[in-house]
């Protein structure tokens, strides 16, 4: 701040607090709604203060859940979401760090071509190629499997670029010294590159975990077996009720539980999160 203007500072605080309240409103309402019973919710606008059905609603979601909708219980779906997110994190990071290593530290025919093939993935989001990709996954017999859920999502040009950019900043002397000491490429990778990339890997993991956790369209296409349902798919099934009322108190409890893990990660790993976000998108 260049000069001291108490009134403007006050206004700035007021604006930010108001902004936060508006941004937080839907989540606040969701939390409140998840503590009421359906009769209260259906009888008018949502109350603004918590009700007394908190334990009951969350217990129902966590244990019996919405058997009526053909959904397994929340903990099962949360586990599926977790497996999917972690598999995507590990898969994306390992294949992209290896290919970045190959592109930066080796000279070989078709290097440029390989780089462009990876680059093209930026232009082919799953939403655009859904039908043919679905068909290929079906032909390969990968519907309703962990491989089908994760493998088609793990190619990532941005992660490869990130590692490539980072490797370019590592001084050449490192490699020369390693070679003088007689280290082969894989030893150099394991003992020097990998330890140096630790923060990058951590930052990227945070971003990719969120990416994996919020996946919606792909799991929706690939799985028809409730054993593989993720939380995000459940959200839609819970609000698509053919006859009868939507059980809003349960939907809101499920929303709160589905939001919680990634939000906690963002809040507690803020430094890594911001680093991962700003580096992968550029």
């Amino acid at each position, binding site marked *: 701040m260049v*000069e001291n203007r108490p009134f403007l500072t006050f206004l700035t605080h007021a604006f930010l607090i108001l902004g936060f309240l508006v941004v937080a409103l839907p989540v606040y309402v969701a939390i409140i709604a998840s503590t009421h019973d359906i009769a209260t919710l259906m009888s008018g606008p949502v109350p603004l203060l918590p009700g007394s059905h908190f334990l009951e609603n969350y217990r129902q979601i966590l244990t019996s859940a919405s058997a009526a909708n053909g959904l397994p219980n929340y903990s099962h779906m949360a586990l599926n979401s977790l497996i999917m997110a972690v598999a995507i994190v590990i898969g994306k990071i390992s294949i992209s760090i290896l290919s970045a290593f190959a592109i930066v530290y080796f000279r070989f025919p078709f290097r440029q071509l390989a780089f462009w093939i990876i680059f093209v993935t930026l232009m082919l989001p799953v939403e655009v190629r859904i039908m043919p990709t679905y068909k290929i996954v079906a032909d390969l017999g990968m519907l309703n499997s962990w491989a089908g859920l994760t493998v088609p999502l793990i190619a990532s040009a941005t992660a490869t670029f990130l590692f490539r950019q980072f490797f*370019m900043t590592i001084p050449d002397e490192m490699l020369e010294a390693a070679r003088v000491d007689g280290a082969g490429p894989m030893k150099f990778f394991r003992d020097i590159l990998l330890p140096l990339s630790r923060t990058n890997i951590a930052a990227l993991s945070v971003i990719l975990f969120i990416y994996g956790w919020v996946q919606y369209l792909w799991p929706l*296409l690939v799985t028809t077996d409730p054993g593989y349902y993720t939380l995000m798919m459940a959200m839609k099934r819970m609000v698509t009720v053919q006859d009868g009322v939507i059980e809003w108190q349960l939907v809101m409890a499920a929303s709160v539980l589905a939001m919680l893990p990634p939000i906690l990660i963002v809040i507690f790993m803020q430094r890594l999160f911001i680093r991962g976000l700003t580096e992968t998108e550029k």
Partner: protein
Amino acid sequence: MNTKKTTFNNRLLPYLLLAPQLFITLVFFIWPAGQAVKSSFEREDPFGLSTVFVGLLHYQRLFEDPNYLSALSRTAVFAVSVTALSMILGLAFAAAVDRLMRSGKIYTTLLVWPYAVAPVVAGVLWWFLFNSTTGLMPFFLEKIGIHWDHDLNGTQAMILIIIAAAWKQVSYNFLFFLAGLQSVPQSLMEAAAIDGSGPVKRFFTISLPLLSPTTFFLFIINVNYTMFDTFPIVDATTVGGPAQATTTLVYKVYQDGYLGLNLGSSSAQSVLLMMIVMVLTFVQFRYVERRVQY
């Protein structure tokens, strides 16, 4: 494309290292994209027994189809509204946090988390808030004389998905604008302050012009986000309705291809979308990442 001056000499190893990523890219990206291009020129008979090459027929039909044309303009309205709304709010928050250096960190934490909320959850939350029987918003809107029912009113349904999509994206724009503002040299600000320009004037004459690369980058990213990543918001709340009022281009690909099994048309739509992403990616790299040499 540059490499290290010293490299390893190994013939087979680089190919082995690249193999997993190239394999996945070829099988799940390049091949399906090629298939989409191929079937956009073909027509399959109802039993899937034979295909005929039909040239540009599907494309021609699309551009004669009022449904497609309105989906196109609707998507443009959606993309521009979400981008404008979330960028203006993101910039306003960033400028405010940038002013308050000491307490800025707390506000950053208070504002960044919506990024982590899944689009489908964001859609369901705002849908609930605007739900005509249980929602808070229709209750207040009714008091000022607006009857809210997004199940019947297409414009209101569009407003609903714009709000949900923009809400999720504000935190992203906020972080990038904040980083941009914090890299504005302090000496410029001090010089301007000595010359007697107030904080508001400094913002518009110094910070904002210096932010133009960030703004352009965010514009491209946001358009990309609204076009492709908002599928869950539409699918979980309005399902493209009422009367197709919220059917965006991506949602139409899904409707026509996966639900309607109209492969030729859906593929042609996919190809057109790929071209849009290509243009966006090209522009982003050409104008934003000029300093990066690949």
